[in-house]
């Protein structure tokens, strides 16, 4: 009968080999891993594009977006024209304590005012501080990555995403 290496010894060989390969873990506060560009980290707001249409607020599955706005009259652009009414944003809050990070709000926004950013370092000791107002959401805007190219075989995007 051929000699069979006991499974215990074989297993020790594997752990020994793994030991020589070095660590795969990252010491987080000192080294950071960059999440992929598509990663849903935090929602950024481009305030100038927002018309306070409330679509994102209504599409949210747990209703954690709070929007208030008002209309203001602006003088006519041309001589003899009618004065225009514009929507101005008073309040745009996202409660990240409730957010499920589904991305439906970003998708339904017809005016390109909401974007995903892969930033993730915004934990707070106080749960009330997770309510980000429009200034804080606007600060995330500069972290939004460029639209990345698609894989071979993808259909060209029909509608340019600006």
């Amino acid at each position, binding site marked *: 009968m051929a000699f069979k290496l*006991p*499974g*215990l010894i*074989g*297993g020790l060989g*594997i*752990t020994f080999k*793994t030991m020589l390969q070095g660590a*795969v873990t990252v010491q987080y506060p000192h080294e950071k891993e960059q*999440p*992929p*560009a*598509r*990663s*849903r980290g935090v929602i950024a707001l481009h305030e100038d594009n927002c018309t306070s249409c409330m679509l994102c607020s209504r*599409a949210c*599955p747990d209703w954690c977006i709070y929007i208030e706005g008002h209309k203001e009259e602006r003088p006519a652009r041309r001589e003899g024209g009618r004065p225009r009414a514009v929507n101005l944003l008073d309040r745009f809050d996202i409660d990240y304590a409730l957010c*499920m*990070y*589904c*991305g*439906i709000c970003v*998708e339904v926004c017809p005016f390109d005012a909401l974007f*995903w950013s892969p930033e993730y370092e915004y934990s707070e000791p106080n749960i009330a501080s997770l309510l980000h107002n429009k200034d804080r959401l606007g600060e995330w805007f500069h972290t939004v990555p460029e639209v*990345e*190219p*698609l*894989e*071979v*075989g*993808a*259909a060209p995007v029909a509608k340019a995403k600006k």
Partner: protein
Amino acid sequence: MSSTEQPVTPTNDSPDFKAVPDFEVAPGMQRHLADARVNVELDTGDMIINLGPQHPATHGTLRLVVRLDGERVIAADPVIGYMHRGYEKLTEFRTYPQVTTLINRIDWLSSFANEVPFVHAAEQLMEIEAPPRAQYIRTALTELSRIATFLLFLGEMGLQVGALTPAFYGFRDREHVLNLIESATGGRFHPNFNRIGGLKDDLPWGWIAETRNVMKIVLDACDVFEDLVLGNEIFQARTRSVGIIPGELGASYGVSGSNLRASGVDWDLRRDGAPYLAYPELDFEVFTHPDGDSFARYWVRLQETRESARMVLQLLDKMPSGPIMAKVARIIKVPAGESWVETENPLGQMGYYVVSKGGTGPFRVKIRSASFSNVSILPWMLRGVYVPDVVTILASLYFILGDIDR
């Protein structure tokens, strides 16, 4: 002790006491008889203890009320519902895109595979079909989530029988797969990538090449687990002929997926069910094991992880080009009707029964989740096993509490 009182039962002090009764016994049996006598004297009754709700072997809050005679389980009663979140009711107040977000959270280890049957049910009602490229990407991501789920199992199972090392390897290799899912969908655990009629987005540049590399890592990991865990004598001693499910009994309890295939029932919805996704165009094998014990369940899941990796490689080779979204209105309204779609999820058969009354959200959704039925066989399985085996049986059944309680 006063001389007038006689002890009712003889004690060790009394002259009448004999550790071994007077009849002839085989020499080896004397110790056992003494033990039995002690049991009778001390009247060791059954003990009822709770394993859980927070027991490390249950992946969540499963409470197991077991009745013990010493180390042996006489009866076991799983108590579920600690994680009930009421998804079936919640869906009635959400629109279809919002429901996809919710059902990500049913079985959180294989979220992508959960979305597929629901989206299919809605697509059937609307009589649309996702384009072939979307079907292929869906299939690839479903198989990736199956690999991620099983890699965790392959490590976790070692942990439950007392080996810490495989758990680290399982997590390490699963991380590669989760990174792939994240780079394509944006979410590690909750992708929310399926849309009715297709997918949210196409794959990012370089994803296919990266997936090929990771599949090599997965196949190597399967070899490692085969040597490290399956070949280990201690593991075999702990799992062989422990927790046997007879095939027919398992099927009558509603056990499905790898648990049933490990009992020798050759039934896989990817091959035997109504055709869905790109499975009819794939060449794959369905593994069964005749034993039905914990070891068989581990063996079957290991083989299926390998097979899934091969299926992903096939899908990448055959990936068609084209659009990923069918023509769908911006506000989705599903025509009135009912549909039932069942798929082979990593944990077993998962089905959605969707009733629509023509609105933007479903009227009623019934969710058939695999773990709920898999756990229903526990009272039968746990009768007469020892307490340490309860842990290996729970681990080898591999259920997710979110999937049980919904």
